[in-house]
């Protein structure tokens, strides 16, 4: 790679081309540009405008159910690509923008735990990672400083580490209620760690608990890379082209990647050449792009000699338990975000009848429409087949009086084990707005996940009952909860069974890298962005250090 400093003009060859401007792409761009490499990033979405986020408007909840719904098939916006989900138990959630899916994320900041990297050794299942928690920790601590994480140090669910850069957010009345129950049972809890600073930090405003995080933070307080990483990357010379949909990564006769073909905002096809290509398009977008990039040399899709591209998709099936209390809990107040987290049942205990475990995040109940819905989906309502008076008439008033402002919700993120039959493939018919084939999911919730969620739902119910809940509502395996898209291009040391090595470099194409969560060999039982960003940092550091040895087209 030339190492010429940034500022490349359109279509001029560059050192590094990045596909996707979410957290993983942003980490790559920022460090590569700072190291003096010329960088172009292509992102199908646009820069988000905080003024568009509905959180300050009275119709906030209504907008959350459509324009700002996390399922791209519900939003149906031209910048998203649709996903064919008729053969999937779970709908994948994501967002196309600078900042990627974190535009809508809840900001739960939960790095993987030591055991997550060693499930084969510890539990005899799936695979170990090629590196350990300790190997990753320095990258995690550096990412946490950039992200502006708020939290209290000393959580006994994790090994000791450097303190978070900003103090914890208040746990509020709902968090206190959750703690009452957990304390009675003697179960672990910790004030929620969130990607939302409590004081002004790295371009972010402090979180003021508006509670609308999952439709975009109108305060500029939720940590997203359009605020925390891209401005630095661009100042260092990285060029970010938005509205640019990549449809193919091209290769030359030597089998090296030469760059990508993309469709710009005006529908024109363009070509960006580069010495190195890094794909950061998430666990669905990345395998989709590799499968789209078929050539004579790579007839089954790029970097797919192992046949593993698209396989082992993990999405963290999710259940929720809502507890209703006599006391007022300021249920609409943020962060939304986790007020309190619990890792009591995180590690494997085979006597429970399933392997691995889950993390709980206690969240507020939301606005009045939230009494029957969660993150834009109506899941706590009677549903079809019920009587009018079940949810309407006097009962509506009773329901709102009982639940609104009196709820807390436990979200259960359970480890999804990898299975080759859970896959991303290309749909033969469906396309995005540029006519590029859309992905299709083949995904079944496993028996292990099913049993795990049943167990955790029962324990969460005990936790809210111990806190004095007068009503509990359980929603088992919510369909619209594929927010964590992992595993579909797994990393490993064996080229016959994995797509990339531990540095994100593909085994088949030496100048093609993947830095996003699709490389995760296993999924952990926590929200993954802290780990995705840390792994990307560890990988980009290595790429920079070895750049003089890098083969290029």
């Amino acid at each position, binding site marked *: 790679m030339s190492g010429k400093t940034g500022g490349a003009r359109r279509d001029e060859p560059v050192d590094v081309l990045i596909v996707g401007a979410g957290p993983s792409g942003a980490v790559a761009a920022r460090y590569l540009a700072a190291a003096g490499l010329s960088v172009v990033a292509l992102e199908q979405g646009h820069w988000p405008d905080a003024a568009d986020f509905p959180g300050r408007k*009275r*119709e906030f909840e209504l907008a959350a159910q459509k324009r700002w719904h996390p399922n791209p098939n519900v939003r149906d916006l031209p910048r998203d690509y649709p996903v064919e989900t008729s053969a999937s138990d779970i709908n994948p959630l994501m967002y196309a923008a600078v900042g990627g899916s974190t535009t809508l994320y809840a900001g739960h900041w939960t790095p993987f735990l030591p055991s997550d990297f060693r499930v084969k050794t510890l539990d005899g299942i799936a695979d170990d990672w090629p590196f350990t928690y300790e190997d990753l920790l320095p990258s995690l601590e550096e990412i946490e400083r950039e992200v502006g994480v708020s939290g209290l140090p000393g959580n006994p669910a994790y090994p000791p580490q450097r303190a978070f850069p900003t103090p914890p957010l208040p746990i509020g009345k709902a968090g206190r209620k959750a703690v009452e129950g957990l304390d009675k049972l003697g179960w672990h809890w910790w004030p929620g760690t969130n990607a939302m600073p409590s004081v002004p930090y790295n371009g972010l405003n402090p979180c003021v608990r508006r509670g609308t995080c999952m439709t975009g933070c109108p305060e500029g307080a939720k940590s997203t890379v359009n605020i925390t990483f891209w401005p630095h990357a661009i100042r260092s010379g990285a060029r970010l082209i938005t509205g640019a949909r990549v449809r193919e990564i091209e290769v030359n006769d030597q089998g090296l990647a030469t760059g990508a073909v993309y469709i710009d905002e005006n529908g024109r096809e363009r070509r960006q050449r580069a010495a190195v290509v890094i794909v950061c398009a998430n666990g669905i977008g990345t395998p989709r792009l590799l499968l789209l990039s078929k050539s004579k040399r790579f007839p089954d899709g790029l970097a797919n000699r192992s046949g593993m591209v698209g396989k082992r998709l993990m999405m963290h099936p999710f259940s929720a338990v809502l507890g209703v209390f006599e006391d007022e809990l300021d249920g609409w107040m943020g962060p939304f975000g986790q007020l309190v987290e619990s890792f009591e049942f995180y590690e494997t205990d085979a006597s429970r009848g399933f392997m691995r475990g889950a993390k709980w995040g206690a969240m507020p109940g939301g606005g009045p429409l939230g009494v029957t819905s969660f993150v834009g989906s109506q899941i706590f309502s009677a549903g*079809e087949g019920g009587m009018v008076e079940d949810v309407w008439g006097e009962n509506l008033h009773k329901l709102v009086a009982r639940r609104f*402002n009196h709820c807390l919700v436990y979200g259960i993120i359970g480890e999804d084990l990898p299975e080759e039959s859970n896959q991303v493939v290309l749909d033969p018919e469906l396309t995005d707005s540029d006519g590029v084939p859309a992905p299709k999911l083949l995904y079944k919730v496993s028996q292990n996940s099913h049993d795990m969620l049943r167990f955790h739902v029962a324990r969460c119910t005990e936790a809210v009952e111990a806190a004095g809940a007068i009503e509990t509502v359980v929603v088992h395996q919510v369909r619209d909860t594929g927010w964590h898209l992992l595993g579909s291009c797994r990393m490993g040391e064996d080229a016959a069974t994995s797509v990339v090595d531990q540095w994100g470099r593909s085994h088949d194409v030496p100048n093609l890298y993947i830095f996003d969560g699709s490389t995760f060999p296993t999924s952990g039982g926590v929200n993954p962005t802290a780990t995705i960003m840390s792994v990307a940092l560890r990988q980009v550091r290595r790429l920079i250090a070895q750049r003089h040895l890098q083969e290029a087209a």
Partner: protein
Amino acid sequence: MSTAIDGGVRAAFRAIADVLIPAAEGMPAASEVDVHGPVLDRIIGLRPDLAERFFRGIGAIAGLPPETAAVQLNAADPQALAAIGLVASAAYYMQPRVRELIGYPGQEKRPGNPDETPEYVANGMLQQVLDRGPIFKPTPKA
């Protein structure tokens, strides 16, 4: 199927909205806070995806007494009833009077004080968690 919010649509919506959200439990009926007024246009404008089901439902109940209308629509076309119900409840809970009655200030700013010692630290609750010691499984030795 007409998709204009004319006087007939407003009247039919008003009537069924009062069945779904009646005056009861100390709360006003939907029509008392004008859910059939300008807020109806605003909601249909914001959520054009609901329009088809909304107008389909309103069209199907023309001339029926409102109680019968709700029951029949629930049986014949529950999705249309759900759309009408969502429009009605969204409009209802957007009204300042209703928000005041249920004690909802809206999604407003409530800054915390980052310098304050959290209650759970001051009163020793968190210490109990710490006293139980680490709960993670460490990385096994290679």
